[in-house]
């Protein structure tokens, strides 16, 4: 939100100011306590942007009427998955989509129940922005701090403090400012974040899709304006070049695609985790460290001179180096660490507790390695943020600082420097389930 400078407490920036124009796609999550109006906010936002189909609308109107409500209950839009509710799968993240003329949005809709840290973590892992809802009458509560902490842990750079139900406190600026100040004081302790606070009423749609004239003391954007202009993670991605190799592609013996050259070809497919790559650039092939130059760069049949973060490309190099899936092409000036030990914050996702005696599988970028948990340093109580030292296990929803020993080295960055090369999942080799999410501390 470049237009909003820190002239008031509405915008609070503890980090670097984002600069580039916003991308065409923003992924965000909404978080808040059960009754803070999260579903109403999503439902109303979808409706006000013309993203509710006629049949959906007719159905929730009818239900609202049947229940004797004077107005439409917008929460029926997202909570209306009756069959799913009956099946008891409310613990799951749902993904919802809407678009305006300026942007496409993907909402990771995580349920607000307190016991579902893992769902918040799952939704947050791919989010660029988190909307934290607060009920103006209740102010900052434990749940707000918990979600702010989790957003921080998952490295979501953009936070929106949506102070909802302002109509129920007569739009008093003092109420709003007290909440914003308290929140900013808390978030300031966590680290670098950009916080946009917005007073609103989700039920009435005030300050949601359009700015309201009724609040003369608020000069900031409406929620939608902010969502349309807020930087996505990749916009300010200045991290060094990283490209984990997904597949080695070889043209030989007549397996060339229609239109592609039949000449022998060896290249490397992958998605740029960060940075930029140009033809002629020197790259380091990690973990070995060999150097080569980029001789070819393409997306299918289109040759590129340059590619940026998140682009899925094919790279050809000018020298014969033994490269396989799981290796990483890197900026030779700024190499990742090659390590067999990870210090990481782990969110345990499985009902089966962490077992220090067992071997697990770590999947990091495109490489999977065997691992054991060598040490658990502490457990964080996400409600109080208190540390409990030396736990002997981790239960579902626990967040623990852990040291992992790996059987083969990984090319890793700290999560705070790179969300792709700094994250991993833990797989139970027996159940084959994903049992933990990890962010690398160093």
């Amino acid at each position, binding site marked *: 939100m470049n237009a909003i400078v820190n002239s008031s407490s509405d915008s609070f920036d503890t980090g670097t100011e984002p600069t580039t124009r916003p*991308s*065409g*796609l923003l992924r965000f999550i909404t978080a808040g306590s059960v009754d803070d109006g999260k579903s109403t906010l999503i439902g109303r936002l979808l409706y006000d942007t*013309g*993203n*509710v*189909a*006629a*049949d959906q609308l*007719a159905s929730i109107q009818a239900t609202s009427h049947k229940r004797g409500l004077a107005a439409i209950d917008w929460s029926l839009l997202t909570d*209306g*998955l009756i069959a*799913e509710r009956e099946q008891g799968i409310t*613990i799951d993240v*749902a*993904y919802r*989509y809407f678009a305006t003329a300026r942007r*496409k949005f*993907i909402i990771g*809709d995580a349920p607000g129940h307190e016991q579902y840290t*893992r769902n918040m973590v*799952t939704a947050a*892992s791919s989010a660029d922005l988190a909307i934290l809802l607060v009920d103006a009458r209740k102010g900052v509560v434990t749940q707000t701090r918990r979600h702010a902490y989790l957003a921080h842990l998952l490295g979501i750079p953009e936070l929106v403090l949506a102070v909802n139900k302002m109509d129920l406190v007569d739009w008093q600026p003092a109420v709003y400012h007290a909440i914003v100040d308290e929140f900013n004081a808390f978030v300031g302790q966590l680290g670098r974040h950009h916080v946009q606070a917005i007073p609103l009423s989700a039920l009435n749609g005030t300050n949601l899709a359009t700015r309201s004239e009724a609040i003369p003391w608020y000069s900031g954007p409406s929620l939608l304006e902010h969502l349309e202009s807020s930087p*996505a993670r*990749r916009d300010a991605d200045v991290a060094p070049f990283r490209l984990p190799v*997904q597949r080695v*592609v070889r043209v030989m013996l007549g397996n*060339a*695609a*229609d239109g*592609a*050259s039949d000449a022998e070809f060896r*290249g490397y497919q992958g*998605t740029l985790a960060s940075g*930029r790559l140009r033809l002629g650039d020197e790259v380091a092939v990690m973990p070995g460290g060999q150097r080569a130059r980029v001789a070819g760069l*393409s*997306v*299918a*049949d*289109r040759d*590129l*001179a*340059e*590619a*940026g973060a*998140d*682009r*899925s490309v*094919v790279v050809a190099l000018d020298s014969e180096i033994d490269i396989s*899936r799981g290796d990483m092409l890197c900026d030779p000036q700024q190499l990742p660490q090659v390590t067999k030990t990870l210090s990481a914050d782990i969110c345990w*996702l499985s009902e089966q507790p962490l077992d220090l005696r067992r071997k697990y599988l770590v999947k*990091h970028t*495109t490489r999977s390695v065997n691992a054991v948990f060598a040490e658990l340093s502490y457990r964080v109580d996400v409600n109080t943020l208190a540390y409990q030292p030396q736990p002997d296990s981790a239960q579902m929803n626990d967040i623990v600082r852990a040291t992992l020993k790996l059987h083969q080295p990984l090319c890793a960055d700290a999560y705070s420097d790179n969300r*792709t090369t700094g994250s*991993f*999942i833990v*797989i139970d080799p027996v159940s*084959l*389930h*994903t049992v933990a999410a990890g962010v690398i501390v160093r």
Partner: protein
Amino acid sequence: MTVSTHDGLGPAAADHLDLLEAEALFILREVAAECRHPVLLFSGGKDSAVLLHLAYKAFHPERIGCALLHIDTGHNYAEVIAYRDRMAERYACQLHVRSVEDSIRKGSVRLRHAQESRNAHQSVTLMEAIAEFGFDACLGGARRDEEKARAKERIVSVRDEFGQWEPKNQRPELWSLYNTRVALGDHLRVFPISNWTELDVWQYIQREDIELPELYFAHQRQVVRRGDILVPVTHLTPARAGDTVETVSCRFRTVGDISCTAPVASTAVNVADIIAETAQCLLTERGATRLDDRASEAAMEQRKKEGYF
């Protein structure tokens, strides 16, 4: 192959289609790298056309490294079948066709009556094909915006030997770290275009100039009105006594089993028209004064559901 004309030299951030495409290519390559024997489910519909095109891009300069599988209900439009065969040939993909008809002959599918929709029975034939070939991953063109239950489905979803989706027991999906491990006998359903909407699909079809069956574009067709639904007059769905048969300008929004796919009234003759119509359709939905395309699509879905019971 057609080459997209947009500026691809800037960061992918410039365009949400670039990001959706990059995500899909990444997922397809993960499956290609980690799964033993994947297959791409190809019905000849627009979503699978997009998926096939993405597979072409994901493997390039190698040709697509997996076969195509079509579960033929025997109730398809001839034009779609011809399109299916043409695409398989263009991309030099092996095409496996397994038909519900064969399952009926074998006795694994039993119809209540001859004209019953065979849509629901496809899954039986699909599971038989998975067992026959030993596929461990089926790539499909499903999107999360299609229906509510899909909104909760993972991109990579584990199915047991009965093909069942266990919503309660889904693997959490974090970052772009997909867990593709399956036990013997289980298999994966993978949906690389989960995050695409109907409009995204049409915009991408336009950008990449992807060929589609003509049924998707407005044409004159004999139909019968049943409520809000235009029922096409075909050999499987003939006019009943007392029906008024009309010839209307219409197109299909989805192409599937003849007995349960209805066209919508439309004059959109090209992709640009359809994009405009799809966008317009979202705007008119605000008013909600009448049931429009999307509503009738939902109504049709409801009918399909009723057909199950």
